[in-house]
């Protein structure tokens, strides 16, 4: 799908229609190695290093601001011809850290202090850095994932609400009272009902999906990738797929994601300990949230924020993190037999 949706742009930009495909295959090899590592490694031991890892990713997040911008944002660290998105790494590391930390016996998440102090600062720093990139989409994805983990870990609903409500009401105040970007918000509200009124990107995404119809135009036959649909191989790959394989194909894609999530939850249920459970659920819910936000953007249910669709979008870091996430789930599934208590 990456090839089909990117070949025209690659040809135009880099003179070879295989440009993106080759790079993605390279990332796939790297990702597979990383995934194999994740599959074989003792996750408990790894999690012991999660605190230093967290600091490393935070430093990386800060470093992106030293890098030149691409598409108007500082999301990438450039290493020679390749680029890395620290925000994706941050997501995975946070999940591992939370699973590790929340499963400590002494931790009582129901206590406000226990809930806020250990986690509040670094999550806040990470999120702020990501928002400043600006990577609002990633920030929202990570926040939602973190909230779900807290929720499953047994945090008090009141505490969670105490987090969400001030942020939500602050946002609402800014938008509706101060008029900050309110036009965009009104546009967005209008576009939920009639997607064609939305921004150019949303409109094109919806037209692309619509052009697919029930069975799609056939793989390789999509026309919207001819510079109508922006980012046809990354953030909007779901629309590209929808045009070429239609509603039926997208149902299959959604079903596969559903299976991954369902299997992930099953693996979590059978974990012998709280660490395994939280890690499995963290990884699963991060996949769920990413898929949800990405598809909501493409179908005009959320305002445009650039986040990749796990496993399918072009992008090295995203692919490696996605593969690692699945590998972690597979690794955890090995522990099924070790039933405890």
């Amino acid at each position: 799908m990456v090839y089909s949706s990117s070949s025209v742009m690659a040809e135009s930009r880099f003179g070879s229609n295989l440009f993106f495909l080759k790079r993605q295959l390279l990332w796939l090899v790297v990702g597979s190695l990383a995934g194999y590592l994740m599959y074989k490694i003792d996750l408990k031991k790894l999690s012991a290093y999660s605190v230093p890892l967290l600091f490393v990713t935070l430093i990386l997040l800060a470093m992106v601001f030293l890098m030149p911008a691409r598409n108007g944002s500082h999301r990438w660290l450039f290493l020679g011809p390749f680029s890395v998105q620290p925000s994706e790494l941050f997501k995975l590391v946070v999940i591992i850290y939370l699973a590790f930390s929340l499963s400590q016996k002494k931790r009582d998440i129901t206590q406000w202090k226990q809930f806020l102090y250990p986690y509040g600062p670094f999550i806040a720093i990470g999120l702020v850095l990501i928002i400043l990139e600006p990577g609002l989409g990633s920030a929202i994805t990570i926040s939602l994932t973190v909230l779900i983990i807290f929720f499953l870990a047994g945090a008090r609903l009141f505490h969670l609400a105490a987090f969400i409500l001030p942020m939500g009401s602050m946002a609402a105040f800014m938008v509706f009272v101060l008029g900050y970007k309110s036009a965009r918000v009104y546009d967005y509200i209008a576009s939920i009902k009639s997607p064609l009124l939305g921004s150019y990107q949303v409109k094109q995404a919806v037209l692309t999906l619509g052009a697919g119809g029930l069975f799609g135009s056939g793989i390789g036959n999509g026309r919207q990738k001819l510079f109508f649909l922006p980012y046809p191989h990354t953030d909007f790959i779901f629309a590209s797929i929808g045009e070429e394989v239609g509603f039926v194909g997208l149902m299959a894609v959604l079903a596969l994601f559903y299976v991954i999530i369902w299997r992930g939850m099953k693996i979590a249920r059978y974990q012998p300990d709280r660490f395994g459970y939280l890690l499995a659920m963290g990884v699963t819910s991060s996949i769920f949230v990413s898929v949800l936000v990405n598809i909501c953007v493409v179908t005009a249910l959320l305002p445009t924020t650039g986040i990749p669709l796990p496993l399918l979008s072009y992008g090295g870091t995203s692919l490696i993190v996605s593969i690692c996430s699945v590998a972690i789930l597979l690794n955890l599934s090995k522990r099924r037999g070790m039933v405890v208590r």
Partner: protein
Amino acid sequence: MISMKSRFNKVRLLFLYVVITAVWVILLARLGSIQLVHGSEYGEKARAQSSGKTKVQAERGIIYDRTGREVAINVVGSSLSAYPRNKSEVNKANRYLDRINGWKSGTSRKKYKLEPERFRWIKRDLSDKLAIQIAADSVDGLYLRKGLRRDYPFNEVGRQIIGNTNIDYQGLSGFEYNHDSLLAGLPGLIDFLRDGKNNTYNLREVPLVKPVTGKSMVLTLDWYFQEIVEDELKSAVKEYNAISGTAVFLDCFTGEILAAADYIENSTSGVLKLRAVSDCFEPGSVLKIATMAALLDENLVDLEEKIYCENGLWQCGRRRLRDDKKHDTLDIQQIMELSSNIGIGKLAQRLGGEKLKDVLYKFGFGQQLRVDLPGEASGAIGDPGVWSEYNIAALAMGQSISTTPLQLAAAVGAVANGGELYRPHVIKGIIDSDNRTIKYMEKEFIGRVIEEDNAEILRSFLTGVVERGTATPAQSSIISIAGKTGTAEIPDPENGGYIKNKFNASFLGYFPAEKPRIAGIVILHQPEPVHYGGHTAGPAFKRMAERYSIANSDLLKPNTHLKADGNDCEMIEVTDFVGRDYEFAKTMALRDGLTLKTNRESGLVVWQYPPANRKIPGSEKIAVLVDSNDDDNIVMADLVGLNMRTALALLNYQGIDFEFEGCGIVKKQFPKVGEKISKTTKCRLVCGNS
């Protein structure tokens, strides 16, 4: 309460599971709504933005003159338009336009006011060089479009008739407008793909619907003659200080219009209509031809009889009729030659008003001739109710009647050909793009206006007008001309009567006098101080006839040496020199016994006269032009020794204005051979017989 002992909270996990499932259902529903419920609508919109059908221009038909010269053709031109998609493309386009135009920055922004997603033409009909450069630079937001446009090889010559097209290649005026449906053809359809950057890709080589090329038209006009008439009319208006002029010439035997021109001095808008067809005026004495035709046909005059012309002042009822010069008695022929109003007025009494009016109708006056030109006026013959002596006399001498110049030309054409009136027309035929004739216009006989023998008598009168009468300035040494002068007072539309000291001077005639071929009229409006038709319109008519006859030597007087026959000497077939190197052409000419005259001694021959395969007398020299590729620097060719027809053909081809003295072979030329000249140079030739 939450149990910390358990590794997980079943309720919360179940809740999350339900949420995820619900979300999936919502997403599926949303996708169903977009792809299935609105799928066809959105799909249609997506297709509309990425593909489309567009019209393919059909080529317009060509307009040819009677000799097959192309006078309106099609050329491919490139146009530049802007359709920037965003602010940055607007800026890029502005910067680029400033650069290629050599403007200081900001000029383009002010001039074109480009905005995102707004289409705007920048420049139509770019030069080829510029188009290639812009295509190579391919700036975002700027687009080149190739299209056909109309080109007129003779520039402004004859444009009053053929008109022009607008920037979108549609007929706007003249023939281009009136026959647009015929010339335009039918556009074809082509389907194409377009990407988000507005690049288009044709889906197939052959268009969906092929465009149908418009029909071509062959006109009866002779563009060389048209050029001569326009040129001479303009100089006559200037020379005689007139405000405007009109001229029209037609073939006596077919009614085919050969040239029709209008010139208005100090006109700001140019001449938009052809007044020879669309405007009426009071003809004055030129109408006496029709009156005399009626008198002859009705046998009301005796060629021997003398008419008392009252010494210039005739008390006619309560009004007075004057002659320009005092005459005692004149015979019938003299009345015509000297254009006596009293004489013709008295004779017309024998016809009576009604009869005269009938004959004038027969001649085609007072009605539309149904010419294939737009906006034809009918003119009117006055009906006084009571035909007093004065009213009859006035009508007989061309007052109280209005006619178009074309009606007069057609009428005199009928007299010239022996009495048959043919419908004037400008369309000779219609052909399709494969040169198959679709329609051929036969000449249309309207009616007989005078008996053949009477026409001959009348023609002898008209020859006398030029030889001895009022039109002696129209005499030519190389072509015999016959006709009738007119010096018509101009009716005052406000106060009635006539405007004092303002006249329309005209000459209505035909040539050659002894064997008429071409009839025509030249009218000069309000020339001053000389206002006599014979002294103003007459010489103009003569110059037009002369210049046309030089190019068509069979019209010339028998004793004129221009005539290209010479059966007594050996005839040689002319070799084709065009495309040869001059050195080689010279060798060929030597071989074939021909002599070449040229403008320069090296280069490729691009033109020759007489053309290849024509048989010429061995003594005649050939003119060839060697390519210079440089329009501004024409080198004066060697014309000495050429016969006049060849010399004038060469000057005509080079677009150089000329005047000449005498006729026969060029003896002297100014400027001299090899001098650099321009299109504005007037070349003078002194000719004589060898």
